């Protein structure tokens, strides 16, 4: 079974600064996907960024980028130029690439952006 570990229960960052959220996972699969989701107080899970395991290039989406280290099974999220609207719970998630696959989530990291 796959497991996802987020070792930082809470993080805080000053507005306009950069913060990195950590995620490690355990799997014997070679083909899979990794995701970061954001959950603001409204509770709706919003997809932030997605990485395919067979792609060596790290994914980026505007101010969000990942550092994907496949051998180390590490998938960290970097948020640049942090904004107050980035305050939320962030979840790392894993999905095998096969029929009937499902998202397996970590426990989450609360990120607070301070003005």
């Amino acid at each position, binding site marked *: 079974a796959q497991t996802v570990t987020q070792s930082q229960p809470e993080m805080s960052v000053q507005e306009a600064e950069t913060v990195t959220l950590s995620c490690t996972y355990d799997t014997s699969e070679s083909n899979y996907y990794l995701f970061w989701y954001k959950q603001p107080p409204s*509770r709706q899970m919003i997809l932030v960024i997605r990485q395919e395991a067979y792609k060596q290039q790290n994914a980026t989406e505007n101010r969000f980028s990942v550092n994907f280290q496949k051998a180390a099974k590490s998938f960290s999220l970097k948020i640049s130029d942090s904004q107050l609207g980035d305050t939320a719970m962030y979840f790392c998630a894993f999905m095998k690439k096969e029929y009937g696959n499902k998202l397996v*989530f970590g426990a989450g990291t609360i990120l607070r952006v301070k003005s």
Partner: protein
Amino acid sequence: EAGVAQSPRYKIIEKRQSVAFWCNPISGHATLYWYQQILGQGPKLLIQFQNNGVVDDSQLPKDRFSAERLKGVDSTLKIQPAKLEDSAVYLCASSPISRYYGYTFGSGTRLTVV
């Protein structure tokens, strides 16, 4: 496109009562998921539907939880009887057949069992 709709947004019930949650996925999305998110934890999959059929319900407490997806569209999740430990947010999500771009989630139902 319209998002995933869920209702009610909040529900408070006494233990041993029953409760039902409703989900309307994005039009055309074949796959529908129900997740349970206990406070301070990540979401955990309860059940996954592909059209009308169940793909995975291995984590569903079948003695008290049931779910159905009529005509491959809307879905309901029921708890009967509820226990205190069922207090959680229940999230519904949907995805097209090619789901590797991630799911689209609803805003969830927050259930409090007292």
